């Protein structure tokens, strides 16, 4: 193994490893984690790589500690990440909310396995979609991306760090066991071609108490002063005013929480990523993400061969939910088929935002949904055989 920072070149690479390399390439220099299948390979790769690039790898005592450690590292200015799976994510939720409230950029990787509970540790799932948005108490918005290949494990990890810094928000990489454990071609670009969006720093010089949480009216994102930078900042999970100090008033609370939500919602189009496949003339739009999108694409190809006008809308960003994609109108959609390895989480969202019939192809998890199952649903819709919603 070489000690290069960015492993520029073409690789045949494990999804989890591609994620780890994405982190290193993005400048992540702090990883705090706790092993859990099927995310452990990310930690193992970084245990080897961080010492090579001068970063910190620490295995914490549990997931509560993992997320707290990366928040602390982020407060100190580091790009910081943890990786886990459903049970671990369930343990991180309180501090996930702290990250939202303190507006500390972090990247949290969830390689989804069969859930709920201990479920199917080594088999895939996609049922933690709603959890990423609603798991911690209270209203908030975060960002979540769902990779469909090892290449995207790399690319979206880089993007996740950039988005986290741009919007001062936790970003979830919501992968699944299939993608995490799959080995495929990964092309890593030259170091200089990897984007690195800097954190916004305060303008004022560190002198006296600053309204350090006063948002930029443009994007509602306040600048971020790091520990040791001399600003003597205060960060709190309590409702706080623009100086960071506790302010126990309903008005301050409403303002703060609304801003935290709005800064992400307003940026929806900037954050949003999707892939359209044959949508131009599509009458039946298959919506899918993560590993299921691979089956969905195959199903669309097969349907097209039968003369069915099907297309694929692959959601790469899941949160904030891309309402705008649907409200702008998708192809000539007469019906949507949502395929996902859960019992209807994204379907619930699609139903909320479209008026066309929405048909679900669901499986609770353990094995990828096969192209045939999706094709089936598309055929039934095409031939009018299936009731909507």
């Amino acid at each position: 193994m070489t000690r290069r920072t960015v492993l520029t070149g073409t690789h045949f690479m494990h999804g989890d490893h591609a994620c780890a390399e994405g982190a290193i390439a993005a400048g992540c220099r702090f990883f705090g984690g706790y092993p859990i299948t099927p995310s452990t390979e990310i930690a193992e790769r970084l245990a080897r790589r961080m010492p090579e690039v001068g970063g910190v790898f620490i295995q914490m005592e549990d997931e509560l500690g993992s997320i707290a450690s990366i928040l602390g590292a982020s407060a100190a200015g580091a790009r910081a990440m943890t990786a886990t799976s459903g049970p671990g994510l369930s343990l991180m939720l309180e501090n996930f909310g702290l990250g939202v409230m303190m507006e500390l950029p972090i990247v949290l990787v969830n390689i989804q396995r069969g859930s709920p509970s201990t479920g199917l540790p080594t088999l895939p799932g996609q049922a933690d979609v709603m959890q990423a948005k609603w798991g911690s108490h209270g209203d908030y918005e975060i960002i979540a991306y769902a990779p469909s290949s090892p290449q995207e494990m790399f690319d979206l990890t880089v993007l996740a760090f950039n988005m986290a810094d741009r919007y001062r928000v936790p970003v979830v990489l919501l992968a699944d066991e299939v993608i995490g454990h799959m080995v495929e071609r990964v092309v890593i670009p030259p170091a200089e071609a990897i984007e690195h969006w800097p954190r916004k720093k305060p303008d004022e010089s560190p002198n006296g108490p600053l309204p350090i949480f006063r948002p930029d009216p443009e994007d509602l994102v306040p600048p971020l002063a790091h520990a040791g930078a001399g600003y003597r900042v205060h960060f709190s999970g309590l409702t706080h005013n623009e100086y960071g100090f506790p302010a126990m008033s309903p008005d301050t609370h409403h303002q703060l929480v609304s801003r935290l939500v709005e800064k992400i919602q307003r940026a929806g189009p900037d954050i949003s990523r999707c892939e359209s496949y044959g949508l131009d003339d599509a009458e039946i739009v298959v919506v899918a993400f993560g590993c299921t999108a691979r089956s969905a694409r195959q199903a669309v190809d097969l349907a097209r061969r039968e003369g069915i006008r099907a297309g694929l809308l692959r959601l790469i960003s899941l949160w904030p939910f891309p309402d705008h994609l649907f409200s702008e109108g998708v192809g000539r959609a007469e019906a949507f088929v949502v395929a996902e390895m859960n019992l209807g989480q994204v379907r619930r969202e699609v139903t909320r935002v479209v008026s066309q019939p929405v048909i679900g192809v669901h499986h609770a998890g353990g094995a990828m949904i096969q192209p045939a199952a999706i094709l089936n649903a598309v055929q039934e819709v095409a031939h009018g055989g299936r009731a909507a919603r």
Partner: protein
Amino acid sequence: MRTEIRIAGFGGQGVALAGYILGKAVTLHTGLQAVMTQSYGPEARGGASSASLVVADERIDYPFVERPDVLVALSQEAHDRFAPLVKPAATILIDIGLVTGKNGANQFGLPATEIAEQLGRRIVANVVMLGFLTRFTALVDRDGMEKTIESSVKPGTVTLNLEAFDRGYCYDRETITPERSGIDE
């Protein structure tokens, strides 16, 4: 064209590494696509181990092997479990030192572990098998495989592995006969 390959055996036999080297060689030294997947026990412990590879000349969507075109079996259990699932015309390669295969036109064997032991490291049986496999399939040429091996194994073991590859590649290709395979018929 979609070719499905499964390499199966026990934990410790380097099954995953073999799959990885083959997939990497395809990726770096051919114009083809390759996807490798693995199967796991509870959480991620040892035990039976298998690596599956899909190779195709176009984008690979569904990544799993459903009915292999090529099966490499390094243990009896693996053979017995997976041999019934191959395509009708599939090629089955076995380590005849460890596996008792069924007689058949498409079944070929070599004593990979025995050869590896002769080379001094049992652990390179997987690479012996890769050499054997390279002869049987037209996926990657010898040169591509060798380059890939060089960049994938620990620096100190390159020569050994190339030797192992060569032994497998040059192994006298012959159909398994009932005699050699030691089947009770």
